[in-house]
């Protein structure tokens, strides 16, 4: 907000106020006595809005609330000023502008504390209020033709085109009812803002929320009062109260803005807090949240290799910035014109850009540090993800090879076996015995080849794992193991990559036991472990196994790590060996 616009607002506001206050004393001679019970409150409301608005413009230049309050004040003065100029056009216009201040006030309520309409709904209802105001006003102006005794020449409606007093009455009533509905909609919207706001937003909105009910009530009374309460004493009382509410209201807005601001001193302690911390990025978010008074604050970082609008969180996970309608504000922090981080915070903090700036500056080192960590974590995530993808691609390939073997070579050999069997059957006793014997040998050989191929296919990828799950596949492994194996399986099904990994852990473990452990027995235990599963393969053999014992164990460890699990070997000499893999339920 420039100094100049503040000056203009102050001058225009003061002029309008002075004009309104002084007009009854001027020479038009309309007033036989000066109606102080009208003049004082009427002037006070406008002055209050203009003055509070100017204070807002000066103290909270980032918020448009100040300018909006000045606008409400000027709109408040507009009709009375026009009303008192003895020209028909001013008189007619002043009638039309009578309720403009209400629409501006409504806009002020829903745009508080930034003065900006943030969501589509907010913009929609404000546009609706303006549209309703214009429509009702134009319709009324075209049909209004007042006549009363003692009417002055300047007191006639220059816009009157057609219609009757009755039509005008109907239009007026419809307009007022619409206004009442709008009041309820706006009050509901302010309430919703308060509900959805986080701490600083609520702090700012609290006085406004309190002001909503009396203001809304007054507007409703004012609208309906013209028809229902006219002339009654209640009307007088209501109006007195209404003036009081309206006069106090701008200070409610100011207090709301101030309540965001009182956090300012906390930035100093932020410097101290971050300075005294060993790991600069640890607790950065919490420290900023305390300094800014917004527990909901989030810090996102720009990392190299990410797209223009891509940010990651502390852990390096990509996060999308909230959209316009999310009820959150985004402040992008940059260094030499390059964005480095973004603060996602309550919109109320938008009224305090310097607070954000100074907090960000105080935390600059910590933010840089955290950004670098986020960058490393983001890269690590990418590497992990690509490793998992490689493992999964390998599994897919194994599955494909197994399927091709099954449906290709195995199937063809079995068909061939059948054909040979049929040849032997048909040859029957008509061929020499040695030939029949040779044929039987060939058939026997072929069956063995088919058996070998079956075992090969099974080693590449056990189909039973895909079809019947890990439990059945482990039973099948145990049945083939030359060492007695007891299996305890108590886990629900997991992602295929996880089950395949668990299967290979057990397969490799049992193969090692059979080859090297000199064990008398082995146990395989699969249990549910939090969200994932825990696989343990143990034996009572010679022990002394380490990761360096074979490339198989190293490969298992890599495989387990690729899907985000952990792999451990416990093996003291003479105390048997146990391999323990803890796997997530989902390989991500």
């Amino acid at each position, binding site marked *: 907000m420039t100094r100049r616009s503040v000056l203009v607002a102050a001058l225009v506001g003061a002029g309008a106020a002075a004009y309104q206050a002084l007009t009854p004393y001027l020479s038009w001679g309309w007033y036989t006595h000066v109606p102080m019970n009208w003049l004082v409150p009427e002037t006070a409301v406008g002055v209050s809005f203009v003055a509070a608005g100017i204070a807002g413009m000066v103290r909270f230049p980032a918020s448009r609330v100040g300018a909006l309050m000045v606008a409400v004040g000027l709109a408040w003065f507009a009709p009375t000023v026009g009303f008192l100029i003895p020209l028909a056009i001013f008189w007619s216009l002043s009638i039309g502008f009578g309720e403009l201040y209400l629409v501006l006030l409504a806009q002020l309520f829903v745009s508080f504390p930034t003065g900006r309409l943030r969501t589509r709904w907010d913009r929609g209802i404000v546009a609706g209020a303006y549209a309703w105001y214009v429509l009702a006003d134009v319709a009324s102006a075209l049909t209004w033709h007042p006549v009363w005794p003692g009417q002055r020449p300047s007191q006639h409606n220059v816009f009157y085109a057609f219609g009757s007093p009755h039509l005008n009455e109907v239009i007026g009533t419809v307009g007022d009812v619409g206004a009442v509905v709008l009041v309820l909609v706006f009050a509901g919207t302010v309430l919703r803002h308060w509900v959805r706001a986080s701490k600083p937003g609520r702090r700012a909105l609290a006085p406004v929320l309190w002001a909503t009910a009396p203001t809304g009530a007054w507007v409703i009374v004012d609208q309906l009062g013209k028809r229902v309460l006219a002339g009654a004493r209640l009307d007088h009382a209501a109006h007195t109260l209404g003036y009081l509410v309206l006069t106090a209201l701008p200070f409610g807005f100011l207090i709301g803005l101030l309540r965001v601001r009182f956090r300012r001193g906390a930035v100093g302690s932020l410097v101290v807090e971050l300075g005294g911390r060993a790991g600069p990025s640890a607790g950065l978010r919490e420290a900023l949240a305390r300094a800014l008074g917004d527990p909901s604050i989030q810090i996102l970082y720009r990392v190299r290799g990410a797209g223009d609008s891509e940010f990651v969180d502390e852990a390096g996970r990509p996060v999308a910035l909230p959209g316009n309608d999310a009820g959150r504000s985004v402040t992008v922090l940059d260094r030499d014109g390059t964005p480095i981080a973004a603060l996602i915070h309550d919109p109320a903090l938008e009224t305090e850009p310097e607070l954000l700036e100074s907090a960000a500056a105080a935390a600059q080192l910590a933010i840089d540090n955290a950004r670098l960590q986020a960058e490393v974590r983001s890269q690590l995530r990418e590497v992990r993800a690509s490793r998992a993808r490689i493992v999964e691609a390998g599994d897919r390939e194994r599955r494909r090879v197994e*399927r091709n073997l*099954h*449906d290709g070579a*195995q*199937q*063809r050999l*079995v*068909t061939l*076996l*059948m*054909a*040979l*069997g*049929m040849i032997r*059957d*048909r040859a029957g006793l008509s061929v020499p015995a040695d030939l029949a014997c040779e044929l039987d040998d060939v*058939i026997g050989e*072929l*069956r*063995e080849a*088919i*058996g070998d191929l*079956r075992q090969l*296919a*099974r080693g590449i990828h056990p*189909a*039973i794992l*895909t*079809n*019947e799950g890990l439990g*059945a596949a482990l*039973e*099948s492994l*145990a*049945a*083939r*193991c*030359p*060492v*007695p*194996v*007891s299996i305890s399986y108590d886990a629900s099904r997991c992602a295929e990559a996880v089950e395949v990994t668990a299967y290979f852990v057990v397969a490799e473990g049992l193969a090692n036991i059979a080859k090297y452990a000199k064990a*008398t*027995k082995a146990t395989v235990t699969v249990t549910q472990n939090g969200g994932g599963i825990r696989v343990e393969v143990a034996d009572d053999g010679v022990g002394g196994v380490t990761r360096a014992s074979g490339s198989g164990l190293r490969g298992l460890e890599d495989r387990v790590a690729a899907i985000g699990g952990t792999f451990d070997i416990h093996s003291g000499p003479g105390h048997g060996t146990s391999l323990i893999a803890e796997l997530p339920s989902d390989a991500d």
Partner: protein
Amino acid sequence: MPTDTGPAPVASERQDDLPGPAVSRIRVVLAEDSALFREGLTRLLTDAGYHVTAAASDADELLRHVRGGRPDVVVTDIRMPPTHTNEGLVAALRIRGEFPDVAVIVLSQYVETTYALKLLGNNPRGVGYLLKDRVANSRELSEAIQRVVHGGSVIDPDVVGELLGRRREHNPIDELTERERDILTLMAEGRSNHAICERLHLSNRTVETHVAHIFAKLGLPPSADDHRRVLAVLAHLRA
């Protein structure tokens, strides 16, 4: 194939003693996605005297033929389109549920007891799980079909071999004599006392005595019913 018991002296098993339709009246529906194998199998069974009424290329077609034609027996591949996993097994279980009088043999490339036990469920009547290589010997396949058509059950010797061969810490099977082991194997394959007598050239009473010994050594309750017996033996071997 270390556990393959080889071609059995089938000729000595007098199939005509069994109640039920004669071979030439047995109506078979096949299901197999490989055209070459399907045609070969059709010819093999036709040559063996069976009446192959339909040959389906997937499980849906198989179910249609079973519902439409009510065959005596279904011989189906375990793995068929669309997912190429265990459609044949699923279809077999469905047929067993819907048409208990239709016998089913599932042909598979997998030596997996899980599949065999799943197929048997708790009613082993008229059901068989065989490795595909059994087609090498038409008599072996024919014998299996007749056993299931007559309400028996058939478990592939390789599958039984795997069950029997499993190492156990305390294995009561080790206490069996060699002859008792042979009889246990034949029981696990789903054979009746009568068939065991024929196969091993033993008298009925001798076999019954062996069976009683086996059950006592394994700690199983004696069972006169062949169907209950095969389930009890398989459950014991699997445990």
